[in-house]
Each structure stands twice: as C-alpha cells, then as structure tokens.
C-alpha cells in the first residue's frame, strides 16, 4: 500500500494520463486532475477543454508573461496552444453536453458501485456549487474519477453514495492509489492493482462490493 502522499498522486495521475488517446478532447477538473497534463505520454496529442470557454488550454504562463484575458476555469492565469479556439459558455457546454468531449477527469467526495458520483456539496458544511461538474459527468463520453481511495481513514468507494449526487450512474472508471476500478453492468470491477498493494488491502479499504477478475493486472503506470 502506497503511503506517501506525493507518490499516491503520481500513481493516480500517471495512470490516467496513460488512459488518454491521440486526438482526444479532455477536461481536467481543478486540483489533482490538473496534474494529469504533466504526464501525457509522448506521441499522444490531446486537446484540453476549459469550461470558461476554450479548447487548447496550455501550460501555466511564466511569471510576468500572463495575459489577463486568458485564464483557466479556476481563474488562474493560463495559456493556449497553437490551434486553440475561444467561444462563449453556450458553446462550451454544447461541447460538453453534446457528447463532443472524450474524457472528463474529476475528483470525488464519494463514488459508488453503480457509478453514482458525489462531489459538489456536503449538506450543512461545504456547498461550493456544482459549477460545470453535473454537465461534464452527464455529457463526457468517458468519466474518470481521480481521488485517494480513502479520506481520514474512511472509504470513499461505497455501496451507495450518501451525499447529494452530482450525477447518477455516469462514472466509467475510478483511479486511486490502490488501483483501477471500472463500473460495469455486473458491478464494480477491480481491473488493475497498484504497485506495493494487495487485493486484500483494496477490499479492506472499499465498502462497495468489488469484483476481482481472474485477469487482474498490475496498474499501468
């Protein structure tokens, strides 16, 4: 079981980067998902979508080279790659909701074995709002959850989410520092096992019923 915080993150985002295919349009949520951009394999040319209104999000600008009119969806200074395109919010969500976005990667508070996702509020506590998350999860062709397997020792992968949902039954894949899980019609399948991790550890850290297939393979990182 990986213990180091940075190593956990690295395993998660590296695995997700390896999932992306040449030519895909990808939206990376705020926080850990953003880091996926740093691990895209060579030869794989993806385009990043930014909810606030463009495709072709580039790396952060150097200090002093910021353009006040280019920011990412988190309002941080950003750049665009060559061949980018800016547009309004209606077009931004036409792309998302209309099925033109290949992959969305986002964090979660909870996920469950039916592919339900909760990531936008904790009643009575934190209510940041859903932003574009509900549209992203409903609209993207592939929904990948990037998160640590547990929070404060509690599992985040449940039989049934208890927090208000972001969307019902839309998650395709969960990537944690313990492995890769896929939501299938039969249930949640552990398809890949993280380095330094045992199946028993994953099962112990998961409330959801995990299907362990015979062809379980090491995590592709």
């Amino acid at each position, binding site marked *: 079981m990986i213990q180091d915080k940075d190593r956990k993150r690295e395993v998660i985002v590296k695995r997700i980067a390896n999932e992306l295919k040449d030519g895909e349009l990808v939206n990376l949520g705020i926080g850990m998902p953003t880091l996926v951009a740093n691990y895209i394999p060579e030869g794989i040319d993806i385009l990043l979508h*930014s909810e*606030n209104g463009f495709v072709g999000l580039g790396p952060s600008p150097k200090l002093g080279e910021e353009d006040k009119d280019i920011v990412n969806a988190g*309002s941080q200074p950003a750049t665009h790659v060559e061949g980018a395109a800016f*547009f309004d*919010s209606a077009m931004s969500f036409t792309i998302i909701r209309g099925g033109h976005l290949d992959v969305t990667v986002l964090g979660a508070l909870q996920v469950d074995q039916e592919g339900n996702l909760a990531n936008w509020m904790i009643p009575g506590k934190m209510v940041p709002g859903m932003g574009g998350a509900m*549209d992203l999860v*409903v609209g993207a062709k592939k929904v990948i959850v990037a998160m640590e397997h547990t929070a404060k020792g509690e599992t985040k992968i449940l039989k049934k989410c208890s927090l208000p949902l972001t969307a019902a039954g839309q998650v395709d894949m969960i990537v944690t520092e313990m492995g890769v899980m896929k939501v299938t019609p039969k249930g949640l399948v552990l398809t890949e096992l993280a380095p330094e991790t045992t199946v028993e550890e994953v099962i112990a850290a998961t409330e959801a019923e995990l299907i362990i297939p015979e062809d379980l393979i090491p995590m592709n990182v």
Partner: protein
Amino acid sequence: MNKIKTIEQALDYIKDGMTIAVGGFLAVGTPDKLIDAVIAKGVKDITLICNDSGFPDRGVGKWVVNKNVKRVIVSHIGTNPETGRQMNEKELEVELVPQGTLAERVRAAGAGLGGILTPTGIGTVVEEGKQKLNVDGKEYLLELPLKADVALIKGSIVDKKGNIYYSKATRNFNPIMATSADVVIVEAEKLVEVGEIDPTDVMTPSIFVDVIVQ
C-alpha cells in the same frame, strides 16, 4: 441614437429589486466599473444572475460582501466564502444551477424559447420541483428561461453603435447575458468608431446594446 453615456447616467437604469445578469466567469470578463458604481449608488435587493459569485474583493462578489443582493442564481459560490456564510445565516438566497443549464436558461430567455430539455441534473437535487419529460426513452429536465431586467456586460472592443468583440476567455457568459435583458449596458475596455470592428467578427450585434459606458 447616441448610446454612449456616463456611468452615472447608466445607473439610472438600475433600481432596487431588479434582476441583473452580469457577464464574466470568476471575475474575468466582468464589468468592474459598473460593479463598483452599483455599490456606490447603494442599490439593494438585486437578484443576480451570473456564472458564479466571484471573490470577496473581485467581480460580483463585492455585491455579496456589500449586501446589494438578496438572491443569487449561479453555478458556483466556492470562491466567495461570504456567499456561503450569508446563505447559511439565511441572509442571502442562493439558487445553484449547473453551469451548462445556466447558459441554456439565459440563452432561452434571449431566444424566445419557453424552455429546454437537458439530461443534466437527472437523479440529483437539481430535479426537485421540475417537470421531467421522456424523449426517445431518455429522461430530461425541463429547464425554464432566466430573463433579466438589466444585463451588465464587459466588451474588449466596442464600437459607438454598440457592436461588441470579446477578447479570448473574456467572452464566456457575456454574449448570452446580452440577449437576455430588457436593458443591456456594456462597459467598453476600448471604444472605437463604427466600422472599426469587421462585421464578421462582431460577437454581440449592436441591436442588443442600449447603453455604452467607458
């Protein structure tokens, strides 16, 4: 028809209790001078339609801090803790709308549509109180238009007739908000003569714009 006014003149259109749609996304592409002028005038009980509630010290977030708003209709309040505090203290009503649904609801108001069907929000609290329709075996929520009394817009280049060009990521909700209000006030970053913006590059045609300030 001279649409160019002082900010003071523009404020005549803004009254207590109005519904005001404001362009911008986390304070980028937001008409800052108009935001400040509304605070200086002390307008009260605004219902705000915007992507988000900005930051405490930037964008429409200042209205929240200064208690100009009684209700916000936004997709996100996480960057302005004051919004959350006022919501929890029941000082402020907050309607959270998924961002894509917000864009379509505002657009529907501008386009004369009675509503749109979206799959976003199905199976979540967003569907509470809303009509569900089944089209081709798939469930959708009927989401209704969001109309405003006034829209406050930020244009990167505006000509004296009111044609607007938005630079890069400042476009976001601005052109949609500009279709949705009875009175549209644009704050021009750069004001140019009519004809200086190529007609093909205009993003908000002048016909939507009532007042231009600088």
